[in-house]
């Protein structure tokens, strides 16, 4: 059946209400960069599609000491903000100009690896996600959002509405290693955020993309960094830990073997850049 109805709710409650009314067969779409290709190919055959572009979730704004990013904010908007430089950097290395004008930050969280580079940066920044459903809203760490490859904690009647990121300055690095200069899936993506106190690493966050079923934190590598002086030995240890703990996969872009080695290489380079 061709699409019967294209719904454009004007607010989050309206969107939640439509999702509740039409149930799990309603295709929820933000920027359309994932859904439209499948619809155009005749693989996805939805009867009803709901656009989130007009539901008032497309802003990127500072709110106290956090940056509040609407789930339907475009990647171009994320690139344009300067409150959290790591996020601009991640957006710059995601997709292409036209796609960044369409694709959204929320949608990026649902893009399976080796896509979803912005999600990797968000994970390194201790981002939180706000979900809305008929039973109200809930707010949880992004680290608890992903449950598996293309699966999340989002219930079938819930929507992702906002992502919040602390704006407190940390030392950050973002490296996306792809097969091309730009507009390319990742071989691996590395994002990190550190705080140093008295020469030692206080807080360490290290997130990896294309190295697991979803963006993951390299917690063993983080542990190797925490409390240590950031010298060559520490860096080597953290890179080795990240390579050991990641869960890469083989696809048309790279093999599991190669990705694991590149995790080691790029974690080292990211740390050396700090």
């Amino acid at each position, binding site marked *: 059946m061709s699409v019967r109805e*294209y719904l454009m709710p004007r607010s989050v409650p309206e969107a939640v209400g439509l999702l509740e009314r039409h149930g799990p067969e309603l295709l929820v779409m933000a920027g359309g*960069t994932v859904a*439209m290709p499948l619809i155009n*190919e005749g693989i996805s055959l939805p009867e009803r599609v709901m656009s989130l572009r007009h539901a008032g979730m497309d802003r990127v704004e500072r709110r106290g000491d956090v940056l509040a990013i609407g789930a339907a904010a475009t990647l171009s908007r994320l690139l344009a903000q300067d409150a959290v430089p790591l996020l601009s950097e991640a957006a710059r290395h995601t997709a*292409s100009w036209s796609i960044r*004008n369409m694709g959204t930050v929320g949608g990026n969280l649902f893009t399976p690896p080796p896509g979803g580079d912005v999600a990797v940066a968000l994970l390194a920044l201790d981002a939180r996600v706000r979900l809305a459903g008929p039973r109200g809203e809930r707010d949880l760490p992004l680290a608890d959002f992903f449950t598996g490859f293309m699966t999340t904690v989002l219930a079938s009647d819930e929507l992702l509405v906002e992502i919040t990121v602390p704006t407190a300055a940390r030392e950050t690095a973002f490296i996306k290693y792809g097969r091309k200069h730009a*507009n390319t899936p990742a071989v691996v993506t590395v994002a990190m955020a550190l705080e140093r106190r008295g020469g030692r690493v206080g807080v360490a966050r290290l997130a990896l993309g294309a190295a697991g079923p979803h963006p993951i934190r390299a917690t063993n590598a983080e542990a190797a960094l925490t409390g240590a002086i950031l010298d060559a030995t520490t860096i080597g240890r953290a890179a080795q830990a990240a390579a050991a703990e990641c869960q890469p996969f083989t696809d048309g872009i790279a093999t599991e073997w190669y990705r694991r080695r590149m995790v080691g290489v790029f974690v080292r380079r990211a740390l050396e850049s700090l």
Partner: protein
Amino acid sequence: MASTIVTFQLGEREVEVMVKPMTTLQAVLRYQLGQTAVKEGCRQGGCGSCTVLVDGEPMMSCLLPIEEVAGRHVDTLQTALPADAADPLQQAFIAEGAFQCGYCTPGMLLVARALLDRDPHPTRDAIIDALAGNVCRCTGYTPIVAAVEAAARARGDRDERGR
């Protein structure tokens, strides 16, 4: 299934179309409005051959449901650049031989136009970044980048003369 009516600005004129829900902007432009400069290379947002400018921003028309452009300004190569190829950008593409089969050319030109509108003197890296979403299988890109550089220079020369 009810059709939907959408009004938007196409270049200089206002157009109104009646189509099935969620028809792509690409299909409307190509098959209802004669804008066949909007190509159909992949319909996955992967090739850039269907690039249009929406309120001046490059977007992939294959990924845009027509409902999303209601009330907005859309430009295609046919509405954005002159039919006699008098624009320095078009002249530079011809002079540099920035195409072989020509299928990617409309998208390349529109992205280049949007780039030069924002940044009249882009660096080579900025040009490559801007064009990264547009695929060319014939040229190897070098003459395309050279054409955009040449167009930026030509524009600069014109600015100089105007002063």
